[in-house]
């Protein structure tokens, strides 16, 4: 046991010395390897963090949202639907929701307007998201004028600004009373945008959804799990698409690694020749090459992952954000909370280290089985 360990340690020691002897060549390989891992790791970290962010946000979402369709398009729901749905056994609460979008001609942004009588009790007052406050340069106590659909200005006094921590949700949000909401949008009474349904036992959700669909054939119940699934699929798909785009980089790297491993310099050839002539066997040289691969791969992998971590979680992934986040005039600036687990690292390992290793097996074997005299003579 001890001798086996010693053999590995000695060969590793030799490997490190021989890698350092050829700094230039190995550094260029390492840099490219590191860049490839950095790109892929940033991507994987970013997608996972976004997925988690979506899951956290949806945790507080209602179990089910019921919309009404007219000619296949979403329409307002009469509030009397809410009473009928509330009487279905298993439903604990039905809340008609009033919300919509408001286009602000001043800065060309869209705001999300939500009516909530619990948080905004006074008429003509509003809670606004921090991005709106920044964009319109207003603060608590100021007036925020909105133009209603009747072309009458609605002056809202800002009662509070939503904390920046909730930016991902609330950057473009304006919360007003339902009375103001109806004035602003000329919204018909007795109607709601949709209904938020809470169900006591989550296992009954599908049954209740089918009951609602039966009761109101023009309704469309949407489960929270369905929304979550859509987000997951969309983010995975975007991530996968980017991996495909990056695969050309990956393939070029593999070709580069193959080339580096095949085109041994005369000096390296000589070195292997000398090693073999002083008694190293083919398995020993193969082990040497194995450790060489491990040292290069591990260094590139660890450095690449650490750099990607900084790129995504400290700098908010400037290289990928545009492609993966989407865009808007008022965009929440948010810092992703770090999530790194073994699974992501395993995926990265399989996408980078495994192809590299595979590409170098055959060239390494060729080098290791060369005849000592031809190797030394070349």
């Amino acid at each position, binding site marked *: 046991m001890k001798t086996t360990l010693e053999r590995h340690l000695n060969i590793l020691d030799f490997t490190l010395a021989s890698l350092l002897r050829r700094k230039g060549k190995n550094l260029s390989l390492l840099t490219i390897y590191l860049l490839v891992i950095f790109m892929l790791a940033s991507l994987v970290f970013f997608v996972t963090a976004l997925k988690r962010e979506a899951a956290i946000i949806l945790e507080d979402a209602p179990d089910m949202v019921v919309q009404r369709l007219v000619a296949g398009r979403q329409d307002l729901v009469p509030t009397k639907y809410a009473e009928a749905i509330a009487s279905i056994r298993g439903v604990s609460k039905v809340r008609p929701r009033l919300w919509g979008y408001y286009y602000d001609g001043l800065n060309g942004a869209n705001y999300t307007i939500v009516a909530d009588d619990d948080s905004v009790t006074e008429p003509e007052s509003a809670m606004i998201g921090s991005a709106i406050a920044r964009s319109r340069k207003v603060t608590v106590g100021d007036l925020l004028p909105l133009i209603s659909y009747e072309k009458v200005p609605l002056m809202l006094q800002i009662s509070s600004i939503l904390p920046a921590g909730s930016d991902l949700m609330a950057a473009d949000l304006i919360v007003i009373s339902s009375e103001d909401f109806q004035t602003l949008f000329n919204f018909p009474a007795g109607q709601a945008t949709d209904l938020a349904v809470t169900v006591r036992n989550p296992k009954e959700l*599908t049954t209740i959804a089918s009951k609602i669909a039966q009761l109101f054939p023009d309704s469309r119940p949407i489960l929270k799990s369905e929304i979550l699934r859509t987000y997951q*699929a969309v983010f995975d798909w975007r991530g*996968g698409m980017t991996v495909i785009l990056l695969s050309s980089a990956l393939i070029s790297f593999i070709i580069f690694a193959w080339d580096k491993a095949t085109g041994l310099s005369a000096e390296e050839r000589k070195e292997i020749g000398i090693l073999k002539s002083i008694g190293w066997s083919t398995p020993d040289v193969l082990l040497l090459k194995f450790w060489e691969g491990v040292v290069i791969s591990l260094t590139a992998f660890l450095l690449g992952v650490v750099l990607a971590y900084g790129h995504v979680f400290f700098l908010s992934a400037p290289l990928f954000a545009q492609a993966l986040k989407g865009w808007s005039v008022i965009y929440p600036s948010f810092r992703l909370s770090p999530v790194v687990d073994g699974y992501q690292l395993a995926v990265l390992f399989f996408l980078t280290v495994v*192809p590299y*290793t*595979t590409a170098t*097996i055959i060239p390494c074997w060729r080098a290791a089985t060369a005849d000592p005299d031809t190797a030394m003579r070349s």
Partner: protein
Amino acid sequence: MILHPAALALLTTALLVSGLGAYSCFHGMRILGKWDLSSGSELQLELERRTYLISTVMSYILAFQLMLLFLYIYTADSLHPLFTGAMCAAGSLNANSFGYPVLILKIVNFLLSGVWLIVNHTDNKAYDYPLIRVKYELLNLLIPLLVLESILMFAYFAGIKPDIITSCCGSLFSYESGGFSGEIASLPHIPMKIAFYVSMSLTLASGLFFYLKGRSGGLFSISATVAFLVAAASLVSFICLYFYELPTHHCPFCLLQKEYGHVGYLLYATLLGGGVAGLGVGVLMPFKKLGSMARIIPPVQRRLALAAMICYLLFVLISSWKMLFSALRMG
């Protein structure tokens, strides 16, 4: 659904493994056909060099296979929110008819690659390549299975449609469900426990006897293989219940999750490790008297027996510990 980063990683690796496998298989056949140790021709020299390449390739394949097995289950597990009704890997794998065959093939291939490496290791210890034919015939059996596995895995990921309604592990591994998994779950506890402990003690006893006396290795190998199968069935039938502390939950995949301290990885690793080592002893048995092997095989077998015993002992200790200290009590 192929565009999931993990699915891409799995498929890329499967492609590489199949490619390497096909390459080894091709050269393996050349070795089988042209091998002539008495000849000093250039061809023979080249073939002898090729054997180094093939053993290196196979050790990488085995290492990748082991990691892929767990990555596959983990990926299936992380895909479960995409399917209505699925709550863990059991449901995702059930999303189309390729999920479970791939898993079974992965396990079989892992065992076979392990056995191949054992044969290879033993063969390399001798100077005259006595097991060369066995080795490359085994390779010709293993590689097509590896390629088949990659094709089926591709079919699995290509065929995943997120709107499919699948079954949760609760209904898949329960008494009510027909099918093979349901039957394993419904095996009666007491006889299963008896079978588990009897097969394990038999394996450990025969292993100890073999280790000390160097006799009845065949018996040890057979009992180790039987113990592998019984332990796998026991895992679904009763061992997992003690981890979940729920008498109706028979899922073999939830054990891998964080909630149970990832204990599944340890359980499966010890079980697979013990299975490979136990099988390896048996595979080497017929060649014990073959020329130079007479001095090489016995120590290798003894070390394998020791490894198998340690793995199985760990498996028994972990599961028995949980059975004793779990909050679940079964009548």
